[in-house]
């Protein structure tokens, strides 16, 4: 296949995607050479902000009028195996990149005082994570993708294992082995695709009309890797452990970006590479998603640990995303992507909030942190908004995403739609229960100070997005529209 058919090369003066990917890495190396702690913090903050600005620049140069990959870069890498360094963005990844670059400064801000030892290594890990995460979203070559995908594990593992809570040993190893277990099958599937196509190029592997058996096994291998990452219902057990033990910044990255990689993988790989197998497996995937939504909701109701509650709510929320993807409707796809962003923003913000309170009371127990309404009005204001957003209150971002998904799924299956609505009601139940305790509980907390300016600055951009997506989602839908329509049409033409 000719490369122009799927990739528009970069027309700017400098390789903007490579810059976005490798700026944090350069920052990380500079940080490694520094000695002064506050200088390290400032350098990493500046690096992440510059990266964010570059990604804004990337966004302004993004052309939403085409479904092709754009701003592409191409360098031959291992010619003997036809491995190339190919980058490109489309309507799906542009948002995920922006989400990542926006959250990185927030992560650094929230660990400003929370991390007291080994600050240099901590910032190194955060920046390295950022490079790997952006790399995953930009790669259009399987090997490049896989390298970034696995590279992410190392800093994330260290974030949990070194700066984590009391049970960090168990959580970090479980996280690593669980994720790696999925990834090795991904690798085998990648090799299988390579041997069929003769190239590791991702766009060239899409919509090739492979035999059903081949599609089926590739789908199973991919789905295992991605379902663990999402995490879908039976594979979710690593998530609460990892979330509870990780430091706040780690939790934010984990919830907001890492989980998205699973659903991104479903959208980018499973649907286009194994379309028939995806349709064949869709009922099972929908069933797992619905189970995830309901199960997540019920487990949340009985949690007393704030972080655990939010972690399990992630299982439920990500269920909506997979539900949208496997509804095979245009609304479902758009809703899934919107939900990915919304979950990234809202859950990131909630973990930030838990981090704020943990720094003050050194506890994540809901009943220890109850009754903050009078002492921390600003905090409770933020927390309230994000909680409302988390159960999809109209006017907030999640409402828009869930409506899209529900429209999509109702057109396919009434039962799945009904159960998803039940899940949404459960979400309101557990979030309001949490909110009630935090605001009106009866513990005496008078010694605690309200949020400081640094924390407010960290949360403000997230508030902006919660309301923006909630009240005026059109710009977001517009940017992803062409890519999604194309994906939908391609699938329709193959399946009919």
């Amino acid at each position, binding site marked *: 296949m000719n490369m122009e058919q799927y990739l528009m090369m970069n027309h700017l003066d400098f390789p903007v995607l490579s810059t976005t990917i490798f700026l944090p890495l350069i920052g990380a190396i500079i940080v490694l050479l520094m000695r002064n702690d506050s200088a390290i913090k400032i350098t990493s903050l500046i690096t992440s902000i510059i990266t964010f600005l570059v990604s804004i620049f990337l966004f302004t140069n993004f052309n939403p009028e085409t479904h092709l990959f754009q701003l592409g870069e191409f360098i031959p*890498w*291992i*010619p*003997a*195996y036809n491995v190339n360094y190919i980058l490109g963005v489309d309507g799906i990844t542009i948002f995920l990149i922006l989400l990542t670059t926006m959250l990185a400064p927030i992560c650094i801000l929230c660990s400003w005082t929370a991390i007291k030892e080994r600050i240099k*290594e901590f910032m190194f890990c955060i920046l390295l994570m950022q490079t790997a995460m952006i790399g995953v979203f930009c790669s259009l070559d399987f*090997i490049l993708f*896989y*390298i*970034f995908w*696995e*590279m992410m*594990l*190392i800093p994330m*593992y*260290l974030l949990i*294992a*070194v700066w*984590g809570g009391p049970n*960090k*040993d168990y959580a*970090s*190893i479980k996280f*690593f*082995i669980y994720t*790696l*277990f999925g990834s*090795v*099958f991904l*690798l*085998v599937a990648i*090799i*299988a695709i*390579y*041997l069929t196509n003769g190239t590791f190029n991702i766009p060239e592997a899409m919509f090739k009309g492979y035999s059903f058996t081949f599609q089926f096994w590739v789908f199973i291998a991919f789905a295992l890797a991605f379902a663990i990452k999402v995490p879908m219902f039976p594979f979710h057990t690593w998530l609460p452990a990892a979330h509870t033990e990780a430091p706040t910044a780690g939790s934010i990255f984990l919830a907001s970006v890492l989980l998205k990689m699973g659903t991104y993988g479903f959208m980018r790989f499973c649907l286009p590479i194994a379309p028939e197998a995806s349709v064949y497996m869709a009922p099972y995937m929908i069933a797992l998603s619905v189970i995830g939504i309901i199960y997540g909701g019920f487990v949340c109701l009985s949690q007393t640990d704030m972080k655990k509650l939010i972690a399990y709510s992630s299982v439920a929320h990500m269920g909506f995303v997979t539900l949208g993807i496997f509804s095979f409707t245009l609304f479902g796809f758009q809703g899934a992507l919107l939900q990915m962003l919304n979950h990234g923003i809202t859950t990131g913000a909630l973990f930030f909030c838990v981090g704020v309170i943990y720094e003050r009371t050194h506890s994540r127990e809901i009943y220890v942190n109850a009754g903050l309404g009078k002492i921390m009005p600003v905090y409770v204001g933020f927390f309230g908004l994000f909680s409302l957003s988390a159960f999809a209150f109209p006017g907030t971002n999640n409402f828009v995403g869930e409506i899209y998904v529900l429209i999509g799924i109702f057109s396919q299956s009434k039962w799945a739609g009904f159960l998803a609505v039940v899940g949404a009601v459960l979400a309101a139940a557990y979030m309001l229960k949490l909110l009630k305790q935090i605001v009106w509980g009866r513990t005496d907390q008078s010694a605690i100070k309200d949020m400081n300016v640094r924390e407010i600055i960290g949360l403000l951009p997230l508030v902006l997005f919660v309301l923006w997506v909630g009240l005026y989602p059109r710009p977001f839908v517009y940017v992803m529209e062409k890519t999604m329509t194309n994906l939908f049409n391609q699938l329709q033409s193959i399946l009919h």
Partner: protein
Amino acid sequence: MLLLPELSILFFSIVCLFFSVSKNKTGVAAFAKIWSLCTFFLAALCVTNIGELFSGAYKIDLFSQILKLLISLGLCLVVLMLGKNKEIEESFLPEYYMFFGFSTLGLMMLVSSVELISIVISLEISSYSLYAIVPLRKGQTRVQIEASMKYLFFGAISTGVMVFGMSYIYGLAHSTFLSDILAAFPQFISKPIGVLALILTLSGFFFKLSLFPFHFWAPDIYEGASNNTTTFIATIPKVAATALLIRIGMLAMPVESSQIVTIMIVLAAFSMTLGNLVGLVQKDIKRLLAYSGIAHAGYLMLGILSMSTEGNASALFYITIYLFMNLACFYVIILMSKKGENVSINDLAGLSKRSPLLALLLAVAAFSLAGIPPTGGFTGKLFLLTSAFRSGHLAIVIIGAVNTVISIFFYLNLVRMSYSKEAVSIEPIKLSLSEKILCYLFIFLILYMGILPYGLLEIFKIAV
């Protein structure tokens, strides 16, 4: 000067021999360092030599010269890593170097040999030197004697088995030259006796490689021998053994021999699974590395059993990166042990505070051994899996992939101990400048082979 690298290493050994009989033995370490470097450069000079010697029994081509370069690089690194000698009695030091030299000489000859008798002779030259240095360790105890006896017995038995197999081959092919034998291959390879003969012959190399079921020596010898000796045994002979397996595979490639491939698949599968499962429960890092070596021998077989140029090149690539990552792990052990004692996994606690550089080196090497990108271990494993898959051996590819997950547990344990456990002793480990340089060199090599494998892979492809 076709034999320049061999002559240079012979000179190395002979000078060390003179040192051992002279009264003043102080200069030997400096000489060894300088001359092993010289040998490396001489081997680099001779890379493009081509020729045949001893009426065709000794072949000098790009393949053998590249391996000689790799072997001399390995020796050079091992000698440099010896650094401040903590483990060997000063009076034995010249002999110690001398045996290193002779063993390397044998291995260099081995990669050039294309005739059965010269293969046996080269293999024995290298083995006998190693039998002699295994028990050399300060404060020698029964453990060392036991290790060396085990090594000697297992070595002798495997040589016996190998020679036995060779006698069958000679009986079938009426020649000791590999090229003649492989020309007669199609006639006997489908017969049971042909399969038996070939597997018995290969077992000599399987022994060096510590492939299942010839792996029993590895853990005890690794544990008993001094850290430096283990470093040598664990790395350089494996390079040469792989080279010879590739050489035989190269010549045998055109012949369809499904039984042999099936046997190799079974051996590889057992080797990987056994190595990784038993590795899970090890407490001593050297023992752990022994089991990891058994597992890696299994991975390596993936390249050889694909019976393709690509597979051979990837096996060669893998043994190169294996050399570097194993040397890196052993270097951490050598630098950590104060008096040359073994290092257990618990001793790693708090390493990242005691010496950040060593912890980083260990992390890079461990992730590479586990095959996590962007290290060379991943790239090598990717090439191996791809070539085995291409040859249609999906089952072993999946077994290999699952084994990666099993193995990550104990490799990750090394990283976990050094990064997230609190230190028992907080005494920092001071590294001299040259030691730091060597550490950075290892990190660079491992990452370089992971990120830019292209050039090296092309050269290997031409060589095989």
